[in-house]
């Protein structure tokens, strides 16, 4: 086990930020920590890294107890903060070199690592730029380079794609997959379920400082009672037809919102053909029609009764 967290409790006065949080992260996986803003993801990361003291619980990294003085553990950890944490006074190259220098003393080796990190985040052409001159996406990439230049075994990325354009986001996600392929264990926190779904091999969904569900994305989706969701673009359907549609076998709910008919099916059922037959039989005109499997948002919605982005 790379990270073992047991019954972690962190309070900020009256507020319980982490409520008996337990996690196990295995070597080589991309572990996703998913939850809405304020769910306790960053607090959990800070407690795991001993950047925050906690009230109760245990944290072990690489099988050893994590403390603020556990420098041998810290040597193999790379951290990418939620906010860009670089020195405005240093160039791109100098920033990476400085943070790499905190881990690697050998100058020649450090130079090689910095060059590799620059190439990894594709910032070679910006090496002499000061952070002020970089766009948001490039800054995020610099932030990542500063955290991974020393080739850590465990990389913790705390919402690294916040306020990043889609192109840069894709580059970041690709980069994370490559780091994992090179052997690093990744802990990825985000409130973007699409990213977590795309990237992570195992996911923990958090809310109010607690783990509300965990597993692979398939396992998480299997937890809920919902099956596929069929959306039909239709202009006219009357109330009577809606009631008849709801009565079809395997249909859980039917809604008509903004000229769109949203039909949710029960788990394990396939109602696309049935719905199409119904529309034809009742001569209901329709445009596009598409079917989706449940998302992590549906999982979160079913468990907590609210949207992930609430």
């Amino acid at each position: 086990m790379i990270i073992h967290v047991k019954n972690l409790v962190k309070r900020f006065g009256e507020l319980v930020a982490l409520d008996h949080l337990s996690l196990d992260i295995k070597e080589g996986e991309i572990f996703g920590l998913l939850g809405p803003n304020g769910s306790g993801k960053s607090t959990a990361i800070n407690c795991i890294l001993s950047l925050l003291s906690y009230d109760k619980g245990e944290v072990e990294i690489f099988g050893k107890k994590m403390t603020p003085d556990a420098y041998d553990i810290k040597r193999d950890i790379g951290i990418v903060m939620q906010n860009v944490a670089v020195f405005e006074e240093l160039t791109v190259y100098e920033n990476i070199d400085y943070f790499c220098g905190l881990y690697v003393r050998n100058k020649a080796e450090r130079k090689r690592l910095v060059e590799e990190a620059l190439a990894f985040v594709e910032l070679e052409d910006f090496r002499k730029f000061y952070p002020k001159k970089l766009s948001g996406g490039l800054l995020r990439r610099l932030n990542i380079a500063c955290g991974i230049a020393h080739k850590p075994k465990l990389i913790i990325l705390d919402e690294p794609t916040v306020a990043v354009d889609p192109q840069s986001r894709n580059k970041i996600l690709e980069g994370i997959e490559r780091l994992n392929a090179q052997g690093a264990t990744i802990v990825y926190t985000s409130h973007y379920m699409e990213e977590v779904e795309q990237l992570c091999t195992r996911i923990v969904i958090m809310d109010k400082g607690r783990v509300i569900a965990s597993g692979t994305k398939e396992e998480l989706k299997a937890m809920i009672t919902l099956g596929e969701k069929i959306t039909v673009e239709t202009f006219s359907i009357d109330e009577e037809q809606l009631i008849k549609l709801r009565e079809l076998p395997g249909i859980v709910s039917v809604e008509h919102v903004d000229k769109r008919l949203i039909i949710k099916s029960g788990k394990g059922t396939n109602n696309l053909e049935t719905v199409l037959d119904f529309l034809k039989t009742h001569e209901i005109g329709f445009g596009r029609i598409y079917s989706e499997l449940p998302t992590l948002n549906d999982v979160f919605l079913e468990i907590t009764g609210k949207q992930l982005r609430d």
Partner: protein
Amino acid sequence: MPVFKLCMKIFLKNWLSISLYVAIFLAIAIMISMSTMSEQNKSSSFSQEKAKVALISEEKTPLTEGFRQELAKSSDFVKLPDRTEALQDALFFRNVTYILRIPKGFTEDVLNGGSMQMEKTVVPNSTENAYVDINVEQYWNMARIYAKHEPKASEQQVVKQLKKNLSGSTPVTIKAHERAQTANSFSMYYFNFLAYTLSAVLIMGISTVMIVFNKRDLSRRNFCSPMRARSINTQLILANLLFAAISWAILVAFCFLLDSKSFATQNILFFIMNSAIFTACISSLSYLIGNLLKNLNAMSAVCNVLTLGPCFISGVFVPQEFLNSTVLKIASFTPTYWYVQANAKIATLTHFEWSDLEAIFYSMVIVLGFAIAFFALSLVIGKRKRLIN
């Protein structure tokens, strides 16, 4: 030492704003040096004033010629036409301050022991005229004495004797009693003003570095690394101390360039020692400010308040003697007050016995106390901040 090197880079990035303070300070220092230097020259050197004299002689004898030559040593002769109006105008416009007329038969009267007087017209309250009066009295009284005691001597012989007797002069050196060379000197003003510059430069430099390092995410990133917290702090302190030492050395070196004479005195050693202790104190204060402040925008306002405020109330710009006792009482809670007080005592130091130095060391110890207090406080706050973060 990556943290140390980074600090140095940040200092270099800020050199422009820091050097601006140094440049302003030096400009003020040079202006002060010019004014104090000229004042010093007035009071420490002696040169005889010469009165502008119009000598009108109605007779020409060897004695009157000898008198003319003798008077020329202490007067500047101005030639004027012997007309009342012209003479009055010359006096009015201060072209001359003394008009002396030798009446006809004056020499004979003197040689015969008579009491005939020369006519004099002078500008009232003119100090230079006193010299002329003395010379006139001296010459003719001596001529009377020679004439009385050596009646056979010719006029030429009397003139020769008079010239010989009056040729002696006394060199004058002004040496104020028990006054130190550094009292009211450029160095004293310079070291007083140094309180302002050192405060501004050190707060600007050290606090900037500390604020940058204490940014929450940057400090977290640093403390996530395998570099020990103690090592990071030690490197930070070392870099700040080096910056403080270099700033202090540069400013003291400028004093040497501008007033190298004072560096020959023993007093300067105490000035240097006092400023070094003050540098340590302000470095600690800057370290504390850096730990307290969260952003660089607030820093320049804090820097101005913390540098100008204590300097105004502690007597850096206005001598402490002119400040109200309540103001001084408040100022005594700042290290600047004790620094200035020590400087004032050092400047007038003429003896270097323990009894003379005691008060100076007392002030220095207080400044050192401030330094230790600021440093301890900043360590506590720094640690507390790290835990809360």
